[in-house]
Structure formats: C-alpha cells, structure tokens
C-alpha cells in the first residue's frame, strides 16, 4: 500500500475481476476519510462487483484494496472490523426481532453486551423502529427491514460504510431518514461509499462522485467537476451522467484512469 492509503478510507489500486467478461478492469479509486463518495454507472458497469470485492465478499483477480491502510486481502478480519456493508436486499433474519438482530450483529463484531444494548436502543429510537423493536422481522415492510439492516450496519460504529443501492424500495420518508442518518455519520467523521441509480441522491449528498462504465472509472470529482468534464450544455447531473457514460466506454479516454478532475 502507498503511504497515501494510510489517510484514505478506501484505496483501490488496479482492481480487476472477470466473470464471463471483465466486470472490473484495472480500477483505481480512492475515498478520503470523512468523505461521502457516490459511485454512479449504468447497469453492468461493475459498481456492485467493486464494492463486494472491497468488503471481502468477492476475491479480485488482480489488484489491491486497503481500508484505512489495512490490506483487505491480507488482513480481512481487521479490515472488516471497521467496515459495514449494506445491500439493496436487507440481510436480516425473519424470525428475529429488530432488537435481537442488532444484538446478534453486535455479537458478531465483538461489541460487549452493555454497549450493544445502549447502541441498539439508540439506533432503534433514532431510526423510528421503537414500535417494531419486539416484533419479528418477518412481518415488517421492505422499508422497515431496510432500516433494521441499516441499524445493523451502524451498531458496531464502523469507520467506513459501504452501501449498494440503499434507497431501493424506500418511501420518501424512509429515504429521507436514511439520508439524514448517513449525513450525521459523515459529520461525525465516518466515511461512506455508496452506489445509486437515483441521481438526485448523488447530487445532494455526495462530496465527490465517481462514474463507472465498462469496469473502469471514467470520471470523478464534484458535481461541478463532472459538468465541466462532460462539456457545455449539461445542466443536470442526468445530462452529465448520460454524456459521460455514452463516451465513457474507453473509446474517448484511452487511459485507464478517469478524466482529470
């Protein structure tokens, strides 16, 4: 790892993964500590594959991944200790209550039971889950399950939160609540990397946005940076995104890295 990676929440170098075709192809990506980073890209761009490799759910064919300087491939347990992963499909147990689920997750991360109880109850209240705390998850709505899963991701107070399409299926109120929770975590020093297809979320929440296409990062920077890179006349992020991904399959940019931000 480079010296700079010690200061990065997530540092990905020359990452590659191939299934039937290359899913991620020599990706370089860095998320700064305390940053809210959003990863955009069309379907099949390699976003989820990238995040799954970062969390240790997939082994890369090539490359290096570090979380706060910890090599994910060499020291997976230490890296996982400070990470949390949340996907669009809530990974919860139907027969546990939200409170039990949080105790279970806290137990997995080695949080002592007193601290776990305090944090679990705080999160339950914070995410508006108090009325469901003693009910089994099998009867909860998709949005409520997603909030329970988010609480699970936060109960061990990770330094890096990795989210894959966390707003899928959430109603407006739940989506706003989740956004607020993530913003507050970032304000407290936590780092977040998130994929989304909801461009408005990226526009409003991200400090920086990365645009992936064909397994590579084709553009990166703030919204203004991206607009500049996409060229004149792209007023909205949607226009900018479409312009970048239309030209971002490698034909325009011969190099592996993104357009300079």
């Amino acid at each position, binding site marked *: 790892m480079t010296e700079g990676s010690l200061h990065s929440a997530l540092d990905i170098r020359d990452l590659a993964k191939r299934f039937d075709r290359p899913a991620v192809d020599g990706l370089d990506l860095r998320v700064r500590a305390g940053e809210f980073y959003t990863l955009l890209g069309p379907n099949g761009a390699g976003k989820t594959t990238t995040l799954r490799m970062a*969390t*240790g*759910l997939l*082994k890369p064919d090539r490359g290096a991944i570090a979380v706060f300087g910890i090599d994910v491939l060499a020291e997976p*347990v*230490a890296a*996982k*200790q400070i*990470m*949390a*992963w949340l*996907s669009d499909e809530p*990974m*919860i*147990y*139907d*027969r*546990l*209550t939200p*409170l*039990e689920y949080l*105790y*279970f*997750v*806290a*137990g*997995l*991360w*080695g949080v*002592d*039971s007193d601290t*776990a*109880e305090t944090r679990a109850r705080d999160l339950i209240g914070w995410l508006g889950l108090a009325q*469901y*705390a*003693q*009910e*089994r998850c*099998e*009867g*909860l709505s998709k949005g409520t399950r997603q909030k329970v899963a988010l609480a*699970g991701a936060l109960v061990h107070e990770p330094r890096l939160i990795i989210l894959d399409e966390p707003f899928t299926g959430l109603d407006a109120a739940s989506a706003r609540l989740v956004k607020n929770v993530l913003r507050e975590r970032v304000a407290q020093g936590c780092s977040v990397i998130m994929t989304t297809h909801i461009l408005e979320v990226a526009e409003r929440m991200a400090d920086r946005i990365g645009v992936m296409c064909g397994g590579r990062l084709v553009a990166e920077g703030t919204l203004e940076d991206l607009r500049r890179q996409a060229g004149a006349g792209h007023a909205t992020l949607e226009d900018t995104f479409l312009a970048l991904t239309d030209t971002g399959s490698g034909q325009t940019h011969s190099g592996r890295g993104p357009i300079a931000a």
Partner: protein
Amino acid sequence: MIKAGTVAWFAQHETRLAWRDWAWLLSGGRRRRGYAVMLGLFAFVVFMHGFAYLTLAHATDFAAPPDKRLLVTIGGTLLLYWSLMLSQAMEAVTRAFYARGDLDLILSSSASAGRLFAVRIATMALGIAAMSLALAAPAINVLAWLGGAHWLAAYGVVMAMAMVAVAISVMLTVALFRAIGPKRTRLVAQIVAAVIGASFVIGVQLVAILSVGTLSRVALFQSEVIIDHAPDRDSLWWLPADAAMGNGLALIAVLALGAIVLAGAIRFCAPRFGELALAAGGVSHGTARPSRRTANFRPKSPGQALRRKEWLLLWRDPWLMSQSLMQLLYLLPPFFLLSRMFYGEGNSAALLVPVLIMAAGQLAGGLAWLAISGEDAPDLIATAPVTAARVWRAKAEAVAGGVGIVFGPIVVGLAILDPMLGVITVCGIVVAGAAATLIQFWFRAQVKRSLFRRRHVSSRIATFAEALSSIIWAGAGAVAVVSLWFAIFPGVVALAVLPVAWLLSPKRP
C-alpha cells in the same frame, strides 16, 4: 390451437411445467447429463427388480388361489403403501396453496381459478400415481412373473389409491382451512402429512416389538391374532386386495370408486381454492408477531452469537422444527423397546445402537444444511470480522448442540442400562453426525431455508453420501456391539465415504 383459459389449456400448461420440473429434478438442469441419467435409471430399475425378487421369491406361492393369510398380507401392504401416498398427497396439496409461484399472476387474471385448481388437483393425482407406480412397479412385475399376469391388475389398484389419497388430502386441507384458518393449516397439514407417513410404519414396528420383541415390519401381517380378527373373506374390505390379485370386477369397482371420489373432490373443492389460496397468500407475506424473549438474546462472542442465532431461528420456526424432528418419530419404537427393557422384559438393547446412530446422522445432516446452506444473511456473516474457520466451527457446534439435546437423554438411559452400549452409541453418534456435517459443508449451496424439504434436489450426491455414511456408521455400531475389532472394517468403509464425497464436491477457489 387450444382456447386460452379452458381446462385443456390449463392442462397443457401444467403438463409442460410438470415435465420440465421432472426433467430438471433428474438432470439438475444440465442437458449433458441425459445419458448418465438414463443409465442411472436403468441401473436403478434393475436393482429394484432384483431386490423385489429376493424379497418375494420365497415368501409364499403367489400362483395359488388367495387365502385369508395372503389377503391380510396384500391388504396390509396396500394400506401401508396408501398411508405413504396420502402423506405425499397432503404435502402436494399444501404446496399448491402456499407456494406462490405463478398463483399471483393467475389469480390476478380474468381466467377461472376454479378451472386451474381442477387441473392442478388432477395433476397432483397423476403425479402421486406416477411416483407410486414407479416405486411399486418392480414388486408388481416380479409378482406377475412369479404368480401370473393377473397380478398386473395391481397397477390399476395403485392408480385408484392415488386418486383417493389426493381426494382425501384436498378435502382434509380445505376442512382445516375452514376450521383453523390459513395461518395454522400449513403447519398442521404438514405435520399431519408427516405423521401419516410415519405412523403406520411406527405402528407396525410397535406392535411387532410388543408382541414378539423383534423389529420386523411384516410380523404383524403374519400373526395369527391379526388373521383371526381380520374381516371375513367376503368382506368389501378385501376389494383392493382382490383387485390387485386380478379380480376384474373388483378392479373395475376400485377404479370407479377412485375416479368418483376424485371427481367429487374436484367438483366441490376446486371453486373454493382461489379464495383459500388468496388467504394463504396473506400468510406467506408474514404478519408481525411480538416476541417476549428479546432480553435473553445477548451473545458475548461471535461464536456464541452464531450458535444462539441458529438455535433461536430453528426454535421459532415450527415448520422447520417439525421437518427436522419428524424423522425422530422413527425413534419411538426403540424408545418403547428401551422402556420395556428397563422393566426387565427382554435384553435386545443392542438393537437400539444402529437406530440411534442412523437417526443422529440424519438429524445432523438436516441441521447442518440449515446452518450452512440455509443461512439467510450470508453477506452479513461474510462481512463480519470473524474468520471463516470460526464461523464454520460455531455452526458445527450449533449442530452438535441440537443433536446432543435430542439424543442425550436416550443415550444416558442406554448407558445406565449398559455402559458399553452407551459408549459405542456416543462414539457412533459423534462420528455419524460429524460426517454428515462435513458432507453438508463440502456441498454447501446458498438457498432459502424454506427449501429445506427439497434440499436433496440441490445435490443428490450429497444426499446419497450423507445417507450412505449414516447407514455404514450405524452398521459399524451394530457390529461393535458384538465385537469392537470386527467394527474396524465397516468403520474404515464409512471413513472412506468422506474422501470420495470430498472429491465429488464442487471445488471452490
């Protein structure tokens, strides 16, 4: 072209789905397996015919005119077989209500749900008949060879029995829906199905044990007491047995009865299936249930969290619990045997050893599948700061704990009776359970826990290896009771199953 929405159209649709499901079941979705499957089926058919011949060849003179003893044996066997068909039919009917599949699509269309369910009930009868005929065919063919072509009439009797079994299952399930509602019907119907499937076998074993102190399942049918108390030769109770032995009129009567009962069930129940399936759909989506045990779930370490989670999930899922423990119903006869011996009636405790080892291996395999392949949040576990080895160890401990809770008391009872038998049984249970867990680990595949009943479909090699391992360990246990030295050979064979299973297991990077 068949008109859409008609009974014929639904029948074509159902037949196509059933055929593809069956083909997938055999080939595992791989077309290249076609020849291997055909070869395997051929070998199975030959083996079953050989087994049937060895069983029946010297049993009695099947060409002779039927006497009461033969009627009791044939009638009893048919009743035993029918109880298994009824069990299968109950399962199939329950699945038709609760498995959503294409139900939401069809129920939301303008097509008649009554017609669909009429076809589905008929398809169930065909499916049960086909499966039962396939299993009974070797015995029927051998009977026809030994006793004459008139025994082929038994095929018709099996078909009629399938029709009656499905009709009764449909009516029973609808009655359960009305009586206890959709929420409880699923669990009750599945338990009833399993109990029906097991109870007759258990009953026969129990009576055999209580009467002559053996585990023979056919002893009951040959006992003078039963023959003396059986109905007279002219009784209508013997109609199916008479039909199976080639009485043409009896066969027509049995087939007509089956068809009428099935048609009646379809006529009466099919129109109601739509509303019942909708009610069942509400249950599938789950309802909020308060829990009062939250306070006790405070794991202190990752391993403890994983173990407690496995036990809690199993404890809170009555269906899974019943499915896992149902095979333990077969432990009832040994339990009775044990209790009798405590009162000094007999000294056949050695019979218990293989039964307990076999059952422990099967239970461990089921629990291991739930803990390893049936993990509902695999990504959560994989992203936790716990080594894979620690996760597998905790899951294996959860399996061992479950097996210990179930078998501990019985083994303690046995050890009090005979310490050596206790030691042999404990060793057998440990190795059979560990082997089954290892096999499930090697053949793990991420699937929903609700697919527990069909877990054998995902890997027939794993199912076969698990059963083979348990059987050989049970055999080793039985031999060890006689001589520990002689048990080394079956023990080595049982151990050899493991590397073979490992070699056949899917390789992971």
